[in-house]
């Protein structure tokens, strides 16, 4: 039957059976809804793997809420390409994982499903990080073998570091975004969580294919970059800007040990400077918010999603006023804040000074990385300035801002970055991750260096 309107399109889908059975206990709130039992594996390269999929990646057999009230009961008419590829390879998607609303946040506390508890020591009630906190926690807790997240400014790498798992943000344009609920299209990437680099690579190899449905998907013959040179010595750059004053001593110590480990395996360590990194944060927030304000304009309650009818007294002459009821109840406070910020930076009065200026800064950041990668093969630096913070702990001053310095630049430059757990803090015993960042298309090399860190 042909759908006569979008709501009916959704309605028809909803009458398909959704997976609702739950057998596995999830005390960490890592999954937004029920998990399904693992069934007889379909044959394929990944048939031994169970997978959690972030709530903002579209699936037809689970709701796709993006942890937002606006999509609380939304079932997508399609599967994301990455989900299709995993299932085609025999992997089993067992559920959708909790996250910050539309991927906006770094603690996984902005969610209609409530915060994710870091499974490392659940009794301490610490954050799993965000925005892909549910995916990181699910892998860390062993609820699934691997998980998909999305990373727009660090949303895979930060929770990976907090939870003590591997988290890869691939080069922009390699993993299809078809079916990913957009936050900021120019920065959004699908990322991979697993306990080991080896498992991460298995997923990456399956997902690293051209998708004609994604206009930013890179063609098959242009997916890798040529190596810097043919020298056999691995040159590792240490960006001084990634060791800010706010970095906790134990993180500095762990990173130093990790670098010593790499050196012991034959790598050459080179100090480098990325001058524009300090500007990258403001640029990131302007660009990401601007794109968010645009991408989230669609949640008006008309075609799908939460629809709040205006009260009888309301003025019905202006559609915007009618939308406001649905949008006000649909979005949480962080999302609302970013939409307002973004809308302002795109306004006629602010566009040149904010949006265009931010784009120029973004180009500077890219140039800085390009120059650095003429000298070194990869960069290595801490993934987070500290271990996982306690849930409910107020963030001190500019802490979250400083944190972003470590993850946002790679997003702006569209280059691969991976957090690998290297040790546990001598102070609190919690996991610490180190990031490997490579030039565009050097994902394989980044994973290779990640494996060296695992040794």
């Amino acid at each position: 039957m042909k759908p006569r309107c979008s709501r009916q399109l959704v309605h028809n889908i909803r009458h398909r059976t959704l997976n609702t059975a739950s057998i596995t206990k999830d005390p960490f709130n890592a999954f937004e809804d029920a998990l399904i039992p693992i069934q007889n594996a379909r044959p394929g390269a990944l048939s031994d793997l169970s997978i959690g999929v972030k709530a903002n990646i579209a699936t037809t057999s689970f709701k796709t809420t993006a942890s937002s009230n606006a999509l609380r009961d939304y079932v997508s008419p399609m599967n994301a390409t990455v989900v299709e590829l995993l299932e085609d390879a025999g992997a089993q998607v067992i559920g959708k994982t909790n996250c910050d609303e539309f991927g906006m946040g770094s603690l996984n506390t902005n969610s209609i499903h409530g915060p994710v508890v870091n499974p490392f020591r659940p009794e301490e009630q610490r954050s799993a990080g965000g925005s892909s906190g549910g995916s990181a926690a699910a892998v860390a807790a062993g609820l699934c073998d691997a998980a998909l997240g999305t990373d727009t400014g660090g949303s895979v790498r930060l929770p990976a570091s907090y939870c003590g798992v591997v988290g890869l943000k691939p080069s922009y344009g390699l993993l299809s975004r078809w079916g990913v609920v957009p936050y900021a299209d120019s920065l959004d990437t699908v990322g991979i969580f697993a306990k080991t680099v080896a498992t991460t690579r298995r997923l990456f190899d399956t997902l690293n294919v051209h998708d004609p449905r994604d206009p930013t998907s890179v063609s098959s013959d242009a997916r890798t970059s040529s190596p810097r040179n043919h020298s056999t010595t691995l040159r590792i750059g240490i960006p001084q800007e990634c060791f800010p004053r706010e970095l906790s001593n134990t993180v500095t110590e762990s990173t130093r040990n990790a670098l010593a480990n790499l050196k012991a395996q034959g790598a050459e360590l080179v100090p480098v400077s990325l001058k524009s990194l300090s500007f990258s944060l403001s640029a990131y927030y302007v660009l990401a918010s601007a794109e968010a304000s645009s991408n989230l304009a669609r949640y008006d309650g008309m075609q799908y999603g939460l629809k709040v009818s205006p009260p009888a007294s309301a003025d019905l002459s202006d559609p915007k006023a009618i939308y406001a009821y649905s949008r006000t109840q649909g979005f949480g406070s962080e999302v609302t804040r970013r939409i307002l910020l973004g809308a302002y930076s795109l306004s006629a009065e602010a566009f040149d000074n904010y949006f265009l200026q931010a784009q120029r800064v973004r180009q500077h950041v890219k140039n800085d990385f390009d120059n650095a990668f003429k000298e070194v093969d990869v960069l290595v630096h801490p993934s987070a300035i500290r271990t996982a913070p306690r849930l409910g702990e107020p963030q001190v001053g500019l802490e979250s801002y400083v944190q972003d310095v470590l993850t946002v630049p790679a997003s702006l430059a569209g280059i691969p970055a991976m957090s690998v757990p290297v040790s546990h803090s001598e102070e609190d015993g919690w996991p610490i991750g180190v990031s490997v960042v490579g030039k565009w298309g050097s994902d394989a090399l980044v994973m290779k260096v990640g494996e060296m860190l695992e040794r």
Partner: protein
Amino acid sequence: MSRLFRDGWHIVLGIETHAQINSTQKLFSSAPTSLLAHDSNTRFNAFDAAFPGTLPLLNPKCVLLALRASLALNCRIQNRSTFDRKHYFYPDLPVGYQITQHYAPIAKDGYLELPVSKKRVRIQQVQMEQDTAKSISEPRAHKSHIDLNRSGTGLLEIVTEPDLQSPEEASEYVRALQATLRAVGASDGNMESGSMRCDVNVSVNRSGDPFGTRCEIKNVNSFRYIVGAINFEVDRQIALISSGQAVEQETRGFDHYKWETFKLRSKEDAPDYRYMPDPNLGVLTISQSEITNIRDRLPPLPDAIRSRLLDRYESQGVSVNDVDILMGLDTTRLVPFDGEHSTQDMGAVDYFEQVVDNGRRSAKAVSNWMLNNLLGQLSAHSMEFSSTRVPPEQLGALVDLVTSNTITTASGKLLLRHLVAHPSSASVEQVARSLKLVEDQGDDLSAICQRVVEAMPKEVASFKSGNENVVNRLLGKVMKDTRGRADAHAAKTTLLSLLKSY
């Protein structure tokens, strides 16, 4: 108000046209484009309904048609153009933004020469953008329905410089633009069905003064409305200035019941569209070789077709009027989708030339049969011109039968009437025979004449005594006996020779 009143005033007009791109699929989605006849909400997909996770994919057919239109409008094609999002909230825009080419359009700086006045109207730019869905209001129930069929259909926005100076010129420009877009297959340019819509910018100033403040009249969607809206607006602005008041810069609508323009919103209320480069679509690059390729294959434009037809056929007796009628027929012809060349349904000009067949048939005779007789018969059946009802081969054969005197002109008309009423794949000659329009040749005519001569001895005697005019009475009998099918000229010759040798 009278023309006289306008003496000493300059009218300055610019026109922004939105023409639906005549593609089978939408600009950024694979959903099929729609016609008015389609049931609402049957021609859309998840992208057109703004479902999260869907992404735009530029339809190359739309780009091809935009390039053809731009070249036909003598524009400079931009080697790099980009797409931007124009944001506003409205129920006919499910995603909350329209993808358009605000910062870097696909083509700039062209012109269109008007066919009659020969005036060059400069084209500022051509850009591609998405059409919206449609809201259908039900005022009594205080309800609006949204029909997504049109959502995301490709549009060409074509903007002129303020070069037009009268309502008539504006109307001539829109007609010329329509014909041009149709000729290259870019749009069917149908204003009635809404596939071509115009916004008109109007300002007036006293001769010698700088341009006045302009008002934009939105969605003026017929040639009559264009003229009516401009006339009203010009008079309104002149009256304001004449009485010492200022024209406010504003957006206006045209009420075609009251036949006047009315204020929609003032400049201060103009929305801020928060334009943002679309982060998904990147840069559209067009190489010089692609441009050359398309230019080389550009279908002939109306102006060129008209001069060619006049050059070729005017000396053979086809009038300017005939050529304009022929070309006029093509303005309602179906434009094939995606810039394809339709082989099934050719236009009137192609039909005419195919019948003339490189001078094998008389152009004058063909145009006469086609424009006077075929069109008449088709319209008697309430049909517009069609190349398939009586295919060109059939009309050609019919013309041959008449010019070779195999049948008379009167029989030819009868035959044509039959062909229009009962389309048939049989040869025209067979049809003519089955209608007994073709006399059995040679001997039969002689035999009839012989019989008539034998039957009318008084007249023969009269002829013999010098009254040669009496042959006409014999001829009359021949025509009567053959019910007019005999070739009168041939019959007369035969009769004369019989009488002389009698």
